[in-house]
């Protein structure tokens, strides 16, 4: 139970990401639009922001730096960041 890196790498799917964020934020999936602002529209506080970062790391097996985490403001941001991280990993 030490490292939660046991789940295999998951392909990035925007709808799955949307559902994951809705679950973390405890809101309806429909509220997590591509551009809904985490703080201004979805009322994300610092604890929920950390929850998002940790769950994205665990689900997609990536590491997020503090600056990257702070810059995550919407589903689109998260999708772009994860796409870039996962692309980095497959390319040599």
């Amino acid at each position: 139970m030490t490292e939660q890196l046991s789940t295999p790498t998951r392909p990035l799917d925007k709808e799955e990401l949307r559902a994951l964020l809705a679950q973390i934020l405890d809101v309806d999936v429909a509220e997590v639009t591509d551009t809904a602002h985490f703080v201004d529209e979805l009322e994300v506080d610092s604890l929920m922001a950390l929850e998002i970062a940790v769950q994205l790391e665990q689900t997609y097996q990536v590491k997020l730096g503090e600056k990257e985490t702070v810059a995550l403001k919407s589903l689109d941001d998260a999708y772009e960041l994860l796409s870039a991280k996962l692309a980095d990993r497959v390319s040599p």
Partner: protein
Amino acid sequence: MIIPLEGRWALILGASSGIGRAIATALAQEGANIVGLHFDTGDRAASVAELAGKLRGYGVEAHFENANAASPATRAKLIPRLLELTGGEGVHITVHSLAFGTLVPYLPREPWPASITKRQLEMTVDVMAHSLVYWVQDLHAAELLRPGAKVYALTSAGTVQALPSYGAVSAAKVALEAHVRQLACELAPYRVAVNALRAGVTVTPALQRIPESADFVARGEANNPHGRLTVPEDVAEAVTLLSRTDSSWITGNTIGVDGGELHAAAGAWSRPVPAGHEGGMP
């Protein structure tokens, strides 16, 4: 009766740094198995793995979980795991050492860009105070708190002192101490002891996040009648000491682990400590 800690189980909420980390280390050195909960991004994974390796080096089991201690989902996951690990013996020591809260003032004040919101205030009190109640409820319901078990909550002088950015945390610590007293009375029939430990000014990552901390750390040494600040190991030693009994008679207290700092009049104790009397650790 004084008892050894060897083979007993300890649950540390907030185990990856500061005082929680020192407590996990000290209890493992005494032979206690550790289940540590922490909540960190991947940049701290190496540090947590290093801690787990160190604890196992003392010949004990060490299990770490990276999850939000204030989330019901985390408790739902960890309680069955604790039942499985402890095999009916229960958790002898539970430590609530969660430092996650909002550090902004209640009213606009330079240099903070914004004052506190309802959501921030509620989150802070929920994580740093109410989560103790929910953990104890679930541990009790699962019969993991057996006679002689100890529950500790880390509090601070913030219950009686105000700092510019510490309002929400201060409110949380006051609530935490009230929860400790209530739980102590409700758990007395089960012979489970619940106490708050009030550490003095201790340089930890949590303290360093307080914007004005540099100022009072600088003055802290002079204000402490022992002539030095509290170190995490001071608090870890107190937990070890208080846990080495099966008695539940010491319960419902806020116990100062601060070298007398709270009661010392500020600035009155700054003369140098005589050579050879430098106040023990470190």
